[in-house]
Structure formats: C-alpha cells, structure tokens
C-alpha cells in the first residue's frame, strides 16, 4: 500500500445530499440559534473583548517604556543621572485608550524614503572597497564608441559564442575561429572588423540625413533597441515586423503622419495641411539594422526587394547572404546585442552631430532639390483644387 500524496488525483465527489455520503448538504445550512449557541457566542465575545483590552494595555506599556528610553540621554557630566521616566510611564499605563495606533507607513513621502535608502546604502559601503563590479545598465547608458571598442570588451560581452556545431550554416565558416566544448567560437577579430565597418555605414547614413530603422524583436531586446534608436536618432521596431510594411506600405503605414522639416530639424508648419495623415506617400528607410535576422527573414527579404541596404547580427546558424553588411556575433546574449546596438547607436549619434554641425554652417549634407520640386508641385496641385474624377462625374 502506498502512501497517498497531495498530488494524487482526488476522488470524484459523490452526489451532494445523498444519504450514503458522510457529509450532507444539510450540514452546511446555518442552524437557527438556540439558547446554548447564544450563550457560547456571548462567552466568546466577552473573551475577545478581554483579550483586546489586555493587548492595548501591553502596547501602552511598551510604548511608554520606549519613550522613556528615548528621553534618557547619557550625560557625560553626570554619569550617575537616573532617567526620569516614572511619571510618563504611569501616565501612559493609566490611559491605555488614548495611545494612537502605530503608523504603518514610516515615511511621509517618496523623497524621504529615497533619502533613507541612499543613506543606508552609503553606510553599507563604508569601509569596503568594491572593484571590478559589473552593472548591466552601463552598456545602455554609456555604450562604447567604435573607436573605444576592444577585443577583451567583445569577449567579456560574449560576442564570440556561437551555436552548437551541428546547427551551423557553412557559409559562416570564414567567421569561425574554432570549436570548443561543442560550440563554434566566432573570431573576435572578424567581429571587430565587421562591427567597425557597420558602424561606419550607420554614421555615414546618419550624417546624410537618412532614415535608419532598428529591428530587434526578441524578448528582452526592447530596451536595447529603443536606446539604440534614441542614440542614433533613428526609428525602432521591437514588437513585430508586419509583413508588407515595405511592399504594401501605402496600405499598412499610409495612415501615419509625416512632417516637413528644415535642415535644423525644425518643422515647417506651412506644409502641415498638405501632408495630413493618409495624404502622402510612405517613407522608406535608407538603412535597416536587424538584431535577430532569423526571426526577421521577411523584413530582410522586403529590404532586398526594395533595394534597402541592411545590417544584421549574424550568428553561426544564420545566413550571411540575407544582409548587405553582416556582423558575425552572438545574437542570443542580450549583453552581446546591447554592446553591438550601443556601438551602432554611438556611430549614429556621431553622424547626427556632424549633420547638425553642417546645418549650423548653413548647408545641408543631402540634396534638397528634388524635395523643393515635389513641394512646389504639391502646392500647385492644391492651388488648382483638382476634383477627383468620380466626384466630377457625379456633379455632371
């Protein structure tokens, strides 16, 4: 015979109220109070009352004691001074009902709480010296630039770890350094060179005012991709690449708004009415950076169809022919993706800085003639107030 476990399936409950059942539904019905139950209830109530009174008494006693301790300050001049706490003690114990309930919130506001926390942390750190600490948010807040990148940094951020040897894509054989413990090790030098090249491309595109789109749709990459896009002055997708965003863009993204800006990125409000939502051709990115190409094959395929250059992190199981500029690195580690995103983001930031510098001098880093001609054409169309053919036929 085996001992029953809690995880064993429970026997199915029988028919409630059946006479064979040990417990009947009649048991659960509340019975009318009788004399005996009433007396019991009275007794219970009396006992509870007495317990509460006792508790209040004890509480008053302890608070009085604590207050007396607070009042007592050690006087170095009169070390034999006795704390005068007897009066307060008797007062408190004589009036237990007047004591206020203890304050459940020890801090009045968040500011005080934060001050307290900071203080305790400072006290904890006193007398200890921490060296070689790792803070995962450093890569987000202060990512290295392409010039600051080193091989030990790449190694520490796990960019060299590939997939199991059986999962490899043989097109990546030139990026692979060797086999260790059943996985491929990506060559750090190759990663370094390709990452620098990609950073250069991002910087140049940003300098010429191109639209850069960062795509990272894996779980946990949201913060990284948002941070990267913010740095590079680009755009990001972290949820899902909607298939057809490029090939069927007018339908999918037509309802989004655009604005016309000058070389200093200030909006020109004059064209606001001409470019209302749904009244313009969709914008297409000039560069797409993808952090997880395996999940975004559709995106890369559409970029190929629409002639958009792409940059992607290529792990040992991905196909490098999907992208224009592969970065051979580990795409499964968030730390590695954060480093690569940070470097690209810094490159974009540098490009934007150069572009704005050029704009301060009064010239644009990109051609503006075709934009002028387009805007003029739009204005003439608006001035002519062309009716749509259907409406015109209705009027006739």
């Amino acid at each position, binding site marked *: 015979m085996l001992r029953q476990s809690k995880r064993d399936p429970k026997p199915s409950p029988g028919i409630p109220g059946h006479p064979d059942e040990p417990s009947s539904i009649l048991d659960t019905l509340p019975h009318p109070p009788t004399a005996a139950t009433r007396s019991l209830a009275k007794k219970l109530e009396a006992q509870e009352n007495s317990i509460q009174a006792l508790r209040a008494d004890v509480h008053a006693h302890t608070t009085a004691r604590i207050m007396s301790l607070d009042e007592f300050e050690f006087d170095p001049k009169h070390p034999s001074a006795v704390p005068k706490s007897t009066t307060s003690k008797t007062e408190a114990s004589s009036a237990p009902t007047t004591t206020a309930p203890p304050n459940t919130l020890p801090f009045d506001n968040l500011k005080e709480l934060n001050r307290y926390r900071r203080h305790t942390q400072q006290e904890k750190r006193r007398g200890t010296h921490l060296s070689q600490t790792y803070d995962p948010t450093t890569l987000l807040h202060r990512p290295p630039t392409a010039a600051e990148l080193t091989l030990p940094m790449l190694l520490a951020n796990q960019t060299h770890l590939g997939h199991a040897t059986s999962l490899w894509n043989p097109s990546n*054989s030139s990026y692979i350094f060797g086999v260790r413990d059943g996985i491929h090790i990506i060559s750090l030098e190759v990663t370094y060179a390709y990452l620098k090249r990609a950073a250069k491309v991002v910087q140049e595109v940003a300098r010429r005012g191109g639209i850069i789109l960062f795509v990272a749709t894996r779980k946990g990459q949201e913060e990284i991709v948002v941070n990267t896009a913010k740095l590079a002055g680009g755009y990001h997708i972290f949820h899902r690449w909607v298939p057809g965003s490029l090939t069927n863009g007018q339908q999918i993204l037509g309802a989004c708004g655009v604005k016309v800006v000058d070389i200093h990125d200030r909006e020109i409000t004059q064209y606001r009415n001409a470019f209302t939502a749904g009244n313009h051709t969709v914008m297409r990115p000039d*560069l797409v950076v993808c952090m997880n190409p395996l999940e975004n094959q559709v995106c890369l395929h559409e970029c190929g169809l629409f002639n958009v250059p792409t940059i992607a992190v290529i792990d040992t199981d991905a196909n490098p*022919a999907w992208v*224009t500029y592969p970065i051979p690195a580990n795409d499964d580690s968030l730390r590695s993706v954060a480093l690569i995103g940070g470097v690209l983001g810094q490159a974009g930031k540098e490009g934007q800085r150069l572009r704005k510098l050029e704009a301060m001098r009064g010239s644009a880093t990109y051609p503006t003639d075709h934009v002028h001609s387009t805007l003029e054409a739009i204005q003439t169309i608006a001035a002519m107030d062309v009716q749509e053919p259907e409406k015109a036929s209705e009027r006739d």
Partner: protein
Amino acid sequence: MGRISLTALNVRRTAVAKLKAKQITQQPSWLNIVGDIPPAQILVRQPSLQHPLTKVRTRSLPSGKTEQYVQVVEPRKRKTLKDRHLFMPKRLQYEEDSLRSRFFSDHPWELARPRVVLETSGDQYKNADWSTGLIQPGVPLSGESVVQRQLWLLQNVPDITVSQAYDIARKEFYSLRRQEETRNRIAAEEARHMGAQFGKPAIQIGMKIENEMYNDWERWSRQVVAEQTQRTAAFEGSISKVEDDSIKEIAQSEGEPERPAIGTGVFAQQQKLESRSLRRAGQQAKASV
C-alpha cells in the same frame, strides 16, 4: 531552394541600374556610402585555422645557461582526407586544459565552491603575475589559480616535469586554503563573541525537513495499521486482553521462551496455544462451579 540570393549584396548595383533605366528618379542617399564602404566578401571558404597544441618549456644547456623553447604537438592526421574537412573549423586546445582536468579530478569539491563566472571587463587577468604566487590582485583563490601557477612554473623553471610543477602549485594552494579556513573560523568566533547570530546551517535545516517527513510518514503508517487491524478484527474477531495475558503467563511458566514459528510450525504453535487456553478456561469454569 538551394540557390543563394545575392540581392542584399547587390543593392548598389541594382540601384545604379534602376537610376540608369530611370525607374527611380532620385539617387538614394546611401548609394555613395555603399560604394565607399563596400560590403565584405561573403560565402568565400578559407581553409580553416589550425590550432596545434603548443607547449613552452625551459631547459638547461650543458654550458650552464637556460633556454626557453616551444614544443608544437601536431594533431593526428585524418585517415580519410576529404575536401570538406579542409574547411571544417578545428578544435581549440590549450595546455591548461589537461592541467585543469587533472586538478579538478583530484579535488572535485573545489567545483562545489561558489564562484563568480561573470566577466566584468575581460581584463581581469591583465595584472596577474603568476611568478609571485597564487594570490593575485582581483583574482580570487581557486583551482584556476593553481592551473595558471603550474603553467608558469612549467614554462619558466628549467627541466621541471608536469607532476613536479603540480606538486609545487597545489601545496602552495593547500597552505593558502588552510590559512583562509583558519581566518574564517576565527572571524566567525569573534563575531559570535560579539553577539552575531548566524542562524541554522543548511544541513540542520535539511535534517529538520527530513525529520518532518519521517514523522508525517509514521503518523500515516500508524493510522493505516490501525485501520487494517480494525478491519481484520471485524472480520474474524480478536483475542481479548485476558486471554492474551494468560497465554503469555503459560509460556513463561513452561520456561521456554516464545519463539516465532516458521512455515507449518506456525499452525502447530497456534493449535498448542489454543488448546492450552481452552484447557485453562475449562479449569476456571470448573473452579467457579
């Protein structure tokens, strides 16, 4: 299927062709950039890197000088040399691997110690100088220190064997561990003296949980036994306490200790006892009459 699409690689060429054919009117902003920074060559297979096992040793020459030299252990050649093996990545091997496996097979409990495996900057071993001993700045004492120290000895002490270097490194390690343990013990004693409480150790907590499980089981088994005896008693009746005592008394008076019977002896013993008790009951009845 099977064909490789080079569309992504040829973005520039396509864009230039489209411009020429006036499919697009405006030159894309990235066109010159992709021209200036061309995409890298992909899909080109290079013969894979060889990773022979290299060992650095020092030997003393007859002239009295010492000389450091490098031994290269070539991997065994494959019997069937196929073209694809030429491009397969090779296994990475280092001399430390054998030293590490030796140390940890001899000291398996070193692996049970908590250890930080997180890389901080990748430069943690930059300031380590293994000629000075096992304690290095920023490197906690562990089996890895022994391996590095042994490697240094192997590379720099003339005519030393692997086992000699191992003995030196591990004895240094033992003495340091002893020091550490003594220091920790004294620190704990001092802290206890000053009123620190460390709570129950993990093993005691484990024992407590185990005891609870045993007690629980015992309670359950007692209940089951009680139920079973009740059921059998309801089915075939039980001997009353008086009868049981009398049987024991007889057994004592006869002088032979009651022995548990085996096999068919069970029935014989049972019969004997029954007849005795019956006889005694009859005698009692007569006496009462």
